[in-house]
């Protein structure tokens, strides 16, 4: 159950009181905020840690979280955690990555807690099966940027970029016109606009439907002015490159936030290099905007030579993993994941060739029974808003509700508002009249969702989310392939010649490699090595061989050699792959002595 967030001066609506601050006082205010000593708390999300404090907590974990991967262009450091068990042997690993996208704050906090649990006895069961690498903060500058007022909700690093590709860097960022510290939206009264107020809650704007006889009421922009007078609003703000749009799968070349090319940023490159340097990684789990756990990938058209859909052989296993996820998380209200273009999670499956699991760190839950349904609750007083009172504008709540059952427009936003209202979370800036030099004489209001508070869980839920993630990952680790060598048969053929046969089986649930992994070719196949005693030779068969993937749940193959060796000696057979593990067998050459 979400707890109400305590109101705190400095980031709540109380800051500007909904009034339009003069630009000068806003600048003063920002200056004051920056002059305050750095807080250990995040300014945007009550109960969350600041970027520095989060990094410190990760460092406090100690030697398990101390591998430095990169220094970002803005001087931030990317660290990796490595959690292992003292048990010897070749062990596969899981890599868990968070700190991406609009929920970057929540996922980073959850992974901090996961790392703390892995460093404590809580993690022992998981670490029995596999090592775990944790990258809670792969793009630290993005997290720091999101906590710098005014709050945009963006998740881009500090590398200046030409988002609108006009030859100028960062020349038209947003402005906090209503002085609430947040960059939300502007709605400009416009009979030719493409948006109108939702009939059930006029705070929500919905697109005008071309199928319905509807008139537009608003044009909608992000909050700010057109600094460079190019007719676009806030199209090139401070920073940056989004870590999660900088990967090679379906890379969105030329798109804002994607960088000059795939894997262009020091932090992206370092994470790629780190992962390629760790062939033992079998599974990558990403807490970010993409999802294949609440909504598992459906096998379908795999895209031909360049794979764009999950391969048919891999889809069933991902469905099973999804079921494990749903045992921990109620996914009824989980929104579909974001597009995978340029994303880390899709890269991890399609290009890195590992099992890639992806989920949102959190989402606004379904309303509890006792909570009011949309439209039944009285929205916060809107009398001050000119919407309904403006002559010639449709009333906020028209007699004929446009919202028929099938009309999905604004449904998600209505649910968000309901949840924010029920939990007294200050996640929506009420529409407030502002003056905007770009629209002289036109009614302009600033307002809308403070998205950080919609995409990130209340701080009180972080511990339980980390507990669930640990349980889920422990269950995933239990699915990993498991090699066994058995059914050893030694048949003496005379003259010191032995036919040696044994079975290699995978008794784990997952195949030794996914179909995509085998295709991608960056995985290490299972390698079988026969070690001979002194004086022995192989008459047929290979001393070392690389095997095709073994299916899960009992996939097996027979291995056989003809060797000539002194009586009573021992052969040693090993089957191993870094991302699978190893099986060993000693074979005594007995019988048929001459």
């Amino acid at each position, binding site marked *: 159950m979400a707890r109400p967030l305590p109101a705190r001066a400095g980031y709540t609506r109380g800051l500007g009181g909904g009034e339009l601050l003069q630009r000068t006082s806003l600048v003063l205010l920002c200056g004051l905020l920056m002059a305050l000593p750095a807080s250990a708390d995040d300014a945007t999300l009550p109960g969350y840690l600041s970027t520095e404090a989060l990094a410190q907590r990760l460092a406090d974990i100690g030697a398990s979280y101390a591998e430095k991967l990169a220094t970002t262009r803005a001087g931030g450091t990317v660290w990796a955690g490595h959690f292992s068990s003292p048990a010897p042997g070749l062990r596969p690993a899981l890599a868990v990555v968070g700190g991406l996208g609009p929920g970057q704050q929540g996922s980073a906090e959850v992974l901090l807690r996961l790392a703390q649990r892995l460093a404590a006895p809580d993690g022992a069961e998981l670490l029995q099966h596999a090592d775990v690498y944790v990258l809670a903060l792969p793009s630290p500058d993005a997290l720091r940027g999101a906590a710098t007022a005014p709050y945009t909700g963006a998740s881009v690093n500090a590398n200046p970029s*030409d988002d*609108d*590709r*006009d*030859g*100028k860097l960062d020349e038209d960022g947003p402005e906090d016109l209503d002085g609430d510290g947040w960059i939300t939206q502007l709605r400009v009264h416009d009979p030719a606009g493409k948006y109108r107020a939702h009939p059930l809650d006029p705070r929500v704007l919905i697109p005008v439907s071309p199928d319905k006889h509807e008139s537009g009421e608003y044009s909608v922009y992000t909050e700010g002015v057109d600094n*460079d*007078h*190019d*007719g676009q609003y806030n199209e090139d703000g401070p920073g940056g490159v989004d870590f999660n749009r900088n990967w*090679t799968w379906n*890379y969105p*070349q*030329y798109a804002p936030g994607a960088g*000059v*090319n*795939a*894997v*262009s940023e020091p932090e992206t*490159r370092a994470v*790629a*290099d780190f992962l*390629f340097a760790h062939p033992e990684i079998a599974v990558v789990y990403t807490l970010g905007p993409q999802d294949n756990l609440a909504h598992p990938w459906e096998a379908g058209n795999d895209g031909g*030579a*360049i794979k764009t859909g999950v391969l048919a052989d891999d889809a069933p296993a991902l469905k099973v993993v999804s079921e494990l996820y749903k045992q921990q998380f109620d996914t009824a209200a989980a929104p579909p994941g974001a597009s995978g273009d340029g994303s880390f999670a899709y890269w991890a499956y399609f*290009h890195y060739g590992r099992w890639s699991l992806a989920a949102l760190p959190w989402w606004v839950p379904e309303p509890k029974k006792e909570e009011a349904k949309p439209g039944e609750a009285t929205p916060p007083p809107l009398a001050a808003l000119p919407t309904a009172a403006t002559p010639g504008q449709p009333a906020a709540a028209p007699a004929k509700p446009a919202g028929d059952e099938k009309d999905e427009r604004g449904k998600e936003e209505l649910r968000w508002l309901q949840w924010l209202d029920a939990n007294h979370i200050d996640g929506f800036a009420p529409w407030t009249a502002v003056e905007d030099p770009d629209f002289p004489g036109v009614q302009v209001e600033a307002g809308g969702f403070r998205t950080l508070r919609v995409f990130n869980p209340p701080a009180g839920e972080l511990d339980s989310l980390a507990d669930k993630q640990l349980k889920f990952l422990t269950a995933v680790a239990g699915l990993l392939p498991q090699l066994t060598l058995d059914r050893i048969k030694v048949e003496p053929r005379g003259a010191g010649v032995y036919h040696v046969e044994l079975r290699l089986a995978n008794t784990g649930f997952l195949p030794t490699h996914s179909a995509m992994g085998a*295709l*991608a*070719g*960056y*995985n*290490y*196949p299972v*390698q079988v090595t026969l070690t001979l005693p002194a004086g022995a030779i192989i008459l047929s068969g*290979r*001393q*070392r*061989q*690389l095997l095709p993937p073994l299916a899960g749940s009992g996939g097996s193959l027979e291995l056989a050699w003809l060797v000539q060796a002194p009586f009573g000696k021992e052969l040693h057979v090993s089957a191993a792959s870094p991302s699978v593990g190893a099986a060993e067998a000693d074979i005594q050459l007995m019988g048929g002595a001459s």
Partner: protein
Amino acid sequence: MIRTFLSLGCLLAALPTLVSAVAPVPAAPYPQMGIPANPKVAARFDMYHDYAAATELLQQLATAFPDYASLQSLGQSYGGREMWVLTLTDPATGPAESKPGFWIDGGIHANEIQGSEVPLYTAWFLLESRSTNTFVERLLRERAFYVMPMMSPDARDAHFHEPNDTHSPRSGLRPVDEDHDGLVDEDGPDDLNGDGFITQMRAADPNGRWKPDPDYPQRMIPCKPDEPGQYAVWFDEGYDNDGDGLVNEDGPGGYDPNRNWAWGWQPEYVQYGAHYYPFSIPEDRMVADFIRAHPNIAGAQSYHNNGGMILHGPGMQEGHYEPADSALLETIGARGAEMLPGYRSMLIWRDLYTVYGGEVDWLYGCQGILSLTDELFTDYDYFNQPDDPNDRDGRRNQARQFDRDLLLGQGFVSWQAVDHPQYGKVEVGGAKKSWGRQPPSFMLEQECHRNMAFSLYHADSLPLVSVQSATARALPGGLTEVTAVVANTHLAPTRLAVDVAHGLTRPDYVSLTGKGIVASAVTASYWSSERFFLNPVEQKTDPRTIELPAVPGMGAVYCRWLVRGKVPFVVSVDSVKGGRATAAVKPLDSAS
């Protein structure tokens, strides 16, 4: 990180010059056409330069022409060799970065060794001919040339000095575990007979399906379907070094440096040699960083071998080039096909094969550069006869006949018996590494010169802005109307269509300056693609500087300012890839 090597390079290069006092190059007794008659730096292009010789030539050029040439290293290769770039321009007309730049590289596939000779020849020829050839002199005044002869210097030296064949090494020498067995580069080819060449292996075998070619007995050809066999043939000299039952499965390197570029990149399973991600090969990244830092580079030529091809992208069918840009590349390529007998202008994915992550596409798609790749040396060169591309056997026979009649059999290693650790008695023989893809000495010079000449045509087709006229006319109310014609008398526009479509570089700026020209003094400004301003485009921000999408090739843009004030004014054009130009504004009444 780009390390400027100019001062250090000059110093180092000056030392041997002072000490050994390079012998003066004898003056040519006859005013021959072609190579510079009396060069300051002796250079031969009837021989190939290894890394050390190429480095020495570059350093000598930088020392002999300190005003016109500067040498820098972009960093060190995996093997510790310098990644040399020689910048050429006439400093009298401004620094290199103020001029439209032309990038020339070679040897990214290091076995394609003449790919490095053409850039070396070009640098030498331009510097040595500048004082005697007005075309070269003009080019150096108008352009900057960035010459990078060795994109993969480690592998170049490996091809020269280690056993290889004509196809190797195509990769750079960063180790890659190609067979994923946990060992890197553990089983490459082996020079069994110690002759410095990786050739073929054969063993007499009545069940083999090969026989010697009756006309050219060095060469093994398949038996006819109903013909008894004579030999088993293995194509790469070597043995199973690592005991895994496979021969030569994990040799030096294991990637393709020309599949690691960031436009249309696809991973290894789609595109062999892609490596891990765009610019995961540091040598490629050094070059990309340099080119990004020099946005004035407007044209590029990369030299490869072989096949007589003038290639333009896209490398893949789903890649998109703007039609206007493709037309330009085809126009330039068609001229090349005239200048280079036996060469054809080709679209890579359609006419050759699919390439993801090629340099030629990155230069175009990410940098807005008019980019071509020449595949040097063609079968046409043997007997000046077009080959039948469908008759591979006929093509091979031309090469064999050329070896027999003109190389006098020099191109092949005779079959020689050796002991093979796994196969027993075998014979080793076949084409030498220096025959097949590379011209012999007496054809190399021609290949260098013709391809250079084509590149100079390409470089001359790059945009170059000028202020054709700038006039002022008095209007009522104390206003002055200033009109400037900004022209580009070369083939290519100042920004390719891909550049305009995706904003790869900033717009061209046309500025009006003068005493009293503050923003408020300019009432309005606008530009038009035709002289009558029928559809003017207004400059909305600071009207002193008009932002143009591009100045078209062989065309002009018309710019106009309405100013409160009077001459003197100056009109300046500043184009990232089209150069810079300035003109004083003349009052119309006094213009004549």
